[in-house]
């Protein structure tokens, strides 16, 4: 892969192919306000780690997993900081309102307003297609917790379908 050898143009082509999916993942997982920065961080990390990509999976799969791990790690750090600064209520923090309200769709907005845990599981399971055992591993929770958070998210979101 030319990008792994430091070819910026090749890497730009990879970015063009995958930026939409990564940015949308970041937006849904962390909110509009953080999506741009997270997308940049994911691609910079990918650039740094490209040499370790051995082609055992599709590049998109590798990149997506890298993005999920990075986004979750950032979310965890942010939660810990907020809990330390503002008490336990901050654990239920949800992403800020859309920075681009004209682009927001009702269902996407509803997803953004879900509680953190429910939103992460919902996005990973129903939007991204991960299994409960994979999600449980990524989030460091039990499979049962993953299932109950998914159900919680769907129960909230059903009110937002016309």
């Amino acid at each position, binding site marked *: 892969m030319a990008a792994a050898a430091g070819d910026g143009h090749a890497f730009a082509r990879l970015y063009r*192919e995958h930026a939409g999916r990564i940015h949308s993942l970041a937006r849904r997982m962390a909110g509009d306000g953080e999506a741009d920065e997270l997308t940049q961080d994911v691609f910079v990390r990918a650039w740094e780690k490209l040499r370790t990509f051995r082609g055992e999976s599709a590049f998109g799969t590798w990149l997506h997993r890298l993005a999920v791990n990075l986004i979750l790690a950032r979310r965890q750090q942010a939660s810990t900081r907020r809990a330390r600064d503002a008490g336990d209520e901050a654990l239920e923090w949800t992403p800020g309102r859309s920075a681009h309200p004209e682009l927001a769709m009702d269902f*996407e907005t509803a997803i953004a307003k879900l509680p953190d845990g429910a939103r992460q599981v919902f996005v990973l399971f129903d939007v991204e297609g991960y299994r409960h055992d994979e999600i449980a591993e990524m989030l460091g929770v039990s499979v049962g917790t993953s299932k109950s958070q998914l159900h919680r998210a769907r129960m909230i979101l059903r009110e937002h379908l016309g």
Partner: protein
Amino acid sequence: MNDTVTDPHAEWTGRLSDYLDGELPPGERMAFDEHLRTCIGCRVMLDQLRAVKRRASTLRDRDPGPHVWAGIAERIGAPGIVINDGPDELAARRERRQIRFPWMRVAAAAAVLALGVGIGRYSNGVMTLPTKHVEAPAPGTPMNRDAYRVAVAQHLGRTEALLTSFRAEAASGQVDAQVGEWAGQMLSSTRLLLDSPAADDPRLRTLLEDLELVLAQIAALPRKADSNTTEVDLARRAVEEKQLLPRMQTLVPAGSPATTGES
């Protein structure tokens, strides 16, 4: 007041998502099927959760603004590399981007090929799905009646997902071009089912004919359907006035294996 003590459905409502995702053990699934036959509340809730699941699988990705790449290029030491997508390139890339869930890739053949997963049969006008396995008919032979009913059940399940997505997008003011393409594919399989010699149930025929008209309306929407709200509104009203979703749900009750969206 503790609802969980008095609510006879409490045992099941918490497991609706498990049921929908095929996560229940066979014994519990059968018990849940039994419960659904008599509990309209759970059926309604299950339909709502299914609609959420389907809506989630149709969400569209959105490209970030050009400043995102500019920041990356700066950080990786390649500030001179500029990404400048014209509209054609963006459109082509969106076309290449695959929808991640296989049930979305509906083609005319799908309803017919998806045989052997169960049998559908009408009982008092309601389609139920027993557990016996049925082999697909040999090529060139008339379609097995039970297999036809399974194909119908799956087709209606997919069409329900499409109409749910269309209704949600119409309400949001923008109908994605992919919904139109999807409707075009469903249109073909609707005609295929109508033309089958097994299509002899008058209520089903009427439903399929109504679906065909509405799918044709959706398939004919311009690519930028948000700029033509009259046509979108007409299609949306047709879905409501013909009561397509309730009629489909009457023919194929919630929880039928062929309609859970998992295969």
